[in-house]
């Protein structure tokens, strides 16, 4: 495992509130499209008996602000998990809820992170929790606190403790990267002089399948993140690509050209054995994606002339065309609840992230950049991550599934491509 300096940083804008500086600071970040319905929350500095490596409260503030659901206030005060809470002061700063906490170093070197979430209006405790984390995992502890607060106040499951994978290219070197959801804490499980594409998370988040060109042709590997163990699971004659995990993690759908043009096959994820062909068309079939129930496979096919998204039973059978609004609809991704289909659509020569509601059949375009690629759902189904280009540089973006809220990650030192949002971690 190779650690590298973070190359992503989010654009944070700290706006001073009106009045004296010590009164409060409102945390704002580069999120566009946020309406007036944000929940105002005060997140105080956590009390600490030492100097932990991470400012846990700062992680909580950043997560909640980036979600677009909160207006985050930093009261510039320390508040422990045992209080006392200045409810009147919090309300005066515009907060409806208040977060305080304590970070304590344990005898074994780990840290105990305790927090409480208070209702500033009713003046009661909404949530309280204690987490124990190694020093290296304090950032993760902050994400978990943010997840709990987010879920308590919105009813939605937070994705702050999930991870993302993406590929960067810099100076002729390709890196497969794994990072926290916010792009921080980057590690590179694979560095190669040859291209890497199509990273795909195993359902338990422990492995990545991807395509590497290190053998001068595309070969599918499965890579265990904790150990670095790699297995070439699809290395047939021709090209091997587009790995997609079945929901139970046992099977990979892949695109192989061993019988001619690209067709979809199923293989055992552990060792690539038991390959069996699933599609039989005269053209291209690729980019498979399992439905969450594991029964259907969505994929890209040009069997009708132009590339469109189709769906077919994993058990075999006829394929049904799913997309219509353009002559180029590719890269299907299914929402975790199976109700929405994200895809890449070309309109007037430009490429956008499209979204289809599978119940109503409505197709909408979520983005407006025109150079988008690689949509990937957040595991709570509320966000779609994708790449776009601006000024010749690749950017990593996320949009809410209604297209209303957009946030941007910047990549100052390299091209960024092929993002894949990881699953919820147990």
């Amino acid at each position, binding site marked *: 495992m190779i650690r590298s300096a973070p190359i992503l940083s989010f654009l944070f804008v700290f706006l001073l509130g009106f009045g004296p500086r010590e009164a409060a600071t409102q945390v704002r970040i580069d999120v566009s499209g946020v309406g007036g319905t944000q929940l105002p929350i005060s997140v105080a500095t956590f009390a600490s008996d030492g100097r932990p490596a991470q400012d846990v409260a700062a992680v909580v503030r950043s997560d909640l602000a980036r979600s677009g659901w909160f207006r985050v206030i930093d009261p510039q005060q320390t508040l422990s998990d045992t209080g006392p809470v200045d409810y009147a002061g919090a309300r005066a700063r515009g907060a409806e809820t208040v977060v305080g906490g304590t970070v304590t170093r344990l005898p074994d070197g780990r840290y105990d992170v305790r927090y409480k979430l208070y209702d500033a209006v009713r003046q009661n405790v909404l949530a309280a929790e204690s987490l124990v984390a190694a020093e290296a995992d304090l950032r993760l502890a902050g994400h978990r606190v943010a997840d709990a607060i987010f879920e308590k106040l919105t009813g939605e499951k937070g994705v702050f403790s999930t991870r993302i994978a993406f590929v960067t290219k810099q100076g002729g070197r390709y890196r497969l990267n794994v990072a926290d959801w916010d792009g921080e804490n980057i590690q590179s499980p694979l560095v190669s002089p040859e291209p890497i594409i*199509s990273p795909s998370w195993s359902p338990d988040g422990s492995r990545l399948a991807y395509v590497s060109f290190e053998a001068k*042709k*595309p070969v599918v590997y499965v890579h265990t993140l904790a150990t670095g163990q790699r297995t070439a699971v699809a290395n047939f004659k021709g090209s091997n690509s587009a790995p997609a995990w079945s929901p139970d993690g046992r099977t990979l759908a892949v695109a192989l050209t061993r019988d*001619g043009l690209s067709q979809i096959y199923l293989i055992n994820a552990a060792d690539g054995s038991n390959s069996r062909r699933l599609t039989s068309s005269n053209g291209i079939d690729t980019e498979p994606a399992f439905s969450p129930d594991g029964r259907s496979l969505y994929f*890209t096919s040009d069997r009708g002339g132009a590339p469109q998204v189709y769906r077919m039973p994993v058990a075999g059978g006829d394929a049904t065309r799913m997309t219509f609004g353009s002559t180029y609809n590719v890269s299907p991704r299914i929402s975790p609840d199976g109700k929405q289909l994200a895809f890449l659509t070309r309109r007037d020569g430009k490429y956008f992230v499209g979204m289809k509601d599978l119940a109503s059949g409505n197709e909408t375009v979520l983005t407006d950049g025109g150079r988008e690629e690689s949509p990937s759902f957040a595991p709570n189904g509320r966000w779609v991550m994708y790449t776009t280009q601006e000024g010749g540089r690749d950017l990593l973006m996320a949009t809410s599934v209604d297209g209303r809220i957009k946030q941007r990650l910047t990549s100052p030192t390299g091209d960024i491509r092929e993002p894949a949002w990881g699953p919820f971690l147990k």
Partner: protein
Amino acid sequence: MIQRSRHALPTPRTASFLAPLVALIAAFALAACSSSVKLDEPAPVEDRSKTTDASAGSGATAGSAGGGGTERPVAQVTVDPSKDPLNDPNSPLAKRSIYFDFDSFTIKDEFRPVVEAHAKYLVTNKARKIVIQGNTDERGSREYNLALGQKRSEAVRKSLAALGVAEAQVEAVSLGEEKPKATGSDEASWAENRRADIVYQ
């Protein structure tokens, strides 16, 4: 080459046949008496004509048998890479790229001679193997472009097969948009990247 005028042993043609017997006699002689017996061994002769790559035989020329009237002539062979038509810049084999129109996967007439020349060479030289790499421009999905690049390499593979090239000599793969020859984002660059390359292994 040292010419030995007297041979204690028969000519090389029969030496291999008698070698075990000679060795046995020698061993017996060594064991039976302590005095040293010097056996005149044949000089090692390396037949260089057998070490050249038979598959590139058309590029190898046999020299004249040296030394008039010698009992053991040695024919020298010099490998001249420039005689392999693959290395001749004026041969149609020097062209290794087939370009395609936008959204097209048919081989244009102007590239037929290129495909035919490589087919002829591969049929003649059955030990040679090639990889055909399909490429695309950068627009759109990387995975779909990988499949489009395969359409191009597959078109070339099928043409070669129709011209008699054995399946085992050819692997069609795709590099999609991942290894662009031209890195610009303009029509000239995109056209340069809509290409299949023949790469000899």
